[in-house]
């Protein structure tokens, strides 16, 4: 690649990253700015908004709830999507396209309606809305994302490799362990990432399905923000990002879990 093209490419990458990260810059700025309201001119650096988080345990509790729900929902969604995607691509059942579209429908239903409907439904059959129900609805909602990634991964997947393994005497489970899943690992990990993120930050689904014990972080932040302009909120958001960065690095260092090989 010649010089000009390389520069153009670098510039493009910088511009796009700048665009995507721009609001985050503003948020971090607000979280370290002395000013007690925003938007404001720069008035000096401070860590007091981060410190203030410690005085509000409800945010930490909610963050833990959100992380738990997101983790469980993502695991369920990825496992279920993997099985379904595999069946759809390999075995090409009759009405496969219909099934695929059906499995995409959670994307297409307004979340606030599903949340309310789930609440009404739970009330009819007499169960409460506890963590299990919340996780289930989150899992259903993010499953299509995992499915799309699995399907994309399987589109370029060579099933002959499996045939070879089976022909060499491997069992089905062994084949999956040593051939299928390792090859599809990027799609699976990417799917998991999508699901976790989307569940963690979701507000509309949780709107009607949380009770005092299961308030998620977006719900608590939303309620706090309605009547207050407090830089502490920006600090909380920044902490979420920092934790995510650390977890990404941690997973990558210890478990070699990455999006790439």
């Amino acid at each position, binding site marked *: 690649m010649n010089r000009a093209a390389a520069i153009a490419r670098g510039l493009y990458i910088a511009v796009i990253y700048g665009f995507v990260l721009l609001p985050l810059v503003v948020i971090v700025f607000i979280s370290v700015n002395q000013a007690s309201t925003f938007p404001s001119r720069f008035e000096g650096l401070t860590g007091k908004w981060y410190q203030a988080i410690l005085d509000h345990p409800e945010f930490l509790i909610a963050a833990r709830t959100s992380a738990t729900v997101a983790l469980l929902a993502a695991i369920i969604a990825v496992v279920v999507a993997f099985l379904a995607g595999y069946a759809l691509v390999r075995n090409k059942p009759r009405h496969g396209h219909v099934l695929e579209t059906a499995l995409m429908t959670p994307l297409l239903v307004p979340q606030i309606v599903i949340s309310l409907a789930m609440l009404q439904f739970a009330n009819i059959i007499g169960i409460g809305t506890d963590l299990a129900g919340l996780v289930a609805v989150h899992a259903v909602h993010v499953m299509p994302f995992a499915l799309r990634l699995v399907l994309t991964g399987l589109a370029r997947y060579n099933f002959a490799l499996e045939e070879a393994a089976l022909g060499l005497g491997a069992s089905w489970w062994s084949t999956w362990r040593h051939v299928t899943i390792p090859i599809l690992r990027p799609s699976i990990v990417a799917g998991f990432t999508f699901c976790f993120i989307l569940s963690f930050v979701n507000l*509309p689904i949780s709107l009607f399905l949380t009770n005092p014990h299961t308030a998620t972080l977006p719900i608590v932040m939303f309620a706090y923000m309605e009547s207050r302009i407090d830089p502490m909120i920006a600090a909380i958001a920044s902490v979420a990002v920092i934790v995510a960065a650390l977890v990404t690095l941690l997973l990558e260092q210890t478990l070699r879990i990455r999006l790439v090989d």
Partner: protein
Amino acid sequence: MRPTTVESTAGTFGRNTATTILLVPSLLLLVLFLGLPLVVVFLSSLQPNALLKFTGPALNNYVYLTTTGYYADVVIRTVRLAFVTTVLALPLGYALAYFLRGLSGRAGNLAIMGLTFPILAGPLIVIIGWMALLADGGPLLSPLIKLGLFSRLRLVGTETAVVITLVQFVLPFVVLTLYTSLRQIPDQVLEAASNLGASASQRFWNVTFPLSLHGVLSSTIIAFSLAASSYVSPYYLGGAAQLTLTTLIAQFTTATYNSELAAAAAILLLVLMIALLAVFTAVFRRFIRS
């Protein structure tokens, strides 16, 4: 001799049984936690409500929504916003994914994950950031206006502002999907093309791009549905004067307590989106095959 296909491996299991077993978990999840609530929604949508009095169950709510011009505008606006967002995000995201596809290991991991960090801050907070940036008197635009480059832009409260924030929201998902897809294309294929005399441009258009089409399909669907179902962006930056289907349904549910009309609007949206999705996927498949 060891069996080599599903049929023979399965022995007493047929191909169909194996398929069914694999599909049951997802379908069960779908039916229990989406299907049944949807039945509740549908039944509710047939009932009279504070706005429309009739003897239910009947389709009056649907008739009202489809024949009132205002709601047609809301639907068109929703589809338009999602469409524009997708059309902008796809090329931008594809280019970025393409440039980044050579990155591997920690660099690649961080590069991709880095794009998702703003989302983790939460759409609500990100919107605050955008409101500060897009206000005429804010830090981004006021210098430009003072320099005389623009007159008052009035971005907040416009569809432009909503699209900007939606593109920023869907871009990481688009890039991640396409990145995953592009990295699956083996280098040997491109090498072979090169050896056969293909130019860089030919290699891209005749090899890379076609092989990445399934990723393009996936990211289009993801971008469109994320944009169409977004609540926070249209609510804060579009405002009550620019309702989309999600903010409209939220309004029905939480302001006028009209969950019946909200239910009807939701079913209409669902039908519309399924139709769009089915058509789009069918067209795409034909395109891929050719």
